[in-house]
């Protein structure tokens, strides 16, 4: 199935975890 190819694309599934962690870190730094 064509959709099987999708997995070969690099997708940052965990991006939201990193974005949240980075935001919290800099909010604390500037708290």
């Amino acid at each position, binding site marked *: 199935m*064509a*959709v*099987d*190819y*999708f*997995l070969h*694309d690099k*997708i*940052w599934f965990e991006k*939201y975890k990193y974005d949240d962690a980075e935001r919290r870190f800099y909010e604390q730094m500037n708290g």
Partner: protein
Amino acid sequence: LSPQTLYTYPENWRAFKALIAAQYSGARIRVLSGPPQFHFGHTNRTPQFLQKFPLGKVPAFEGDDGFCVFESNAIAYYVSTEELRGSTPEAAAAVLQWVNFADSDVVPPASTWVFPTLGILHYNKQATEVAKEEVRRVLGVLDGHLRTRTFLVGERVSLADISLVCALLWLYKQVLDPAFRGPFGNVNRWFLTCLNQPQFKAVLGEVQLCQRMAQFDA
């Protein structure tokens, strides 16, 4: 222009961006997406391919003069018109803003939610719930922006619309059922307006919007 070549696997939404842009610019592109011309997983691992495209990723583009470029947004930009790119610095910056927004804020949660319904990724309830909320937030931002606009930047279609329609495509086909997409009327209107542009239809064909939210395919 003599034909230029786009290497990709079939039905690659990232390749659709350049193909829709080419419908506006008249750029003639031949798509090589199947054997014998291009066999994904093999051709893109050969030394010849890697010499041109060191990452071995698709879509990859080769111009008639040997100019080679990878990264789908760069390819779509190259085959676009000035109008699609944004003809003033403000418009071009706004186009870039929405193109980046598509990659950074739409693609990750859309993939997390949709892939398990296609059976190509294991289902994770917690990740899916987070992704749904991210998608709701993204649609809310777009809905606000499109309240007073027909298209995302200026009065005509641009690469911003092309990029975001392609990034949202699988969401609208698989999981954005009428109940979920109901609150985002401006986005739904915009999405359908784009789909009905002849240049989008020439590449995407008839797109059926999701009627029943697909569940993960155990």
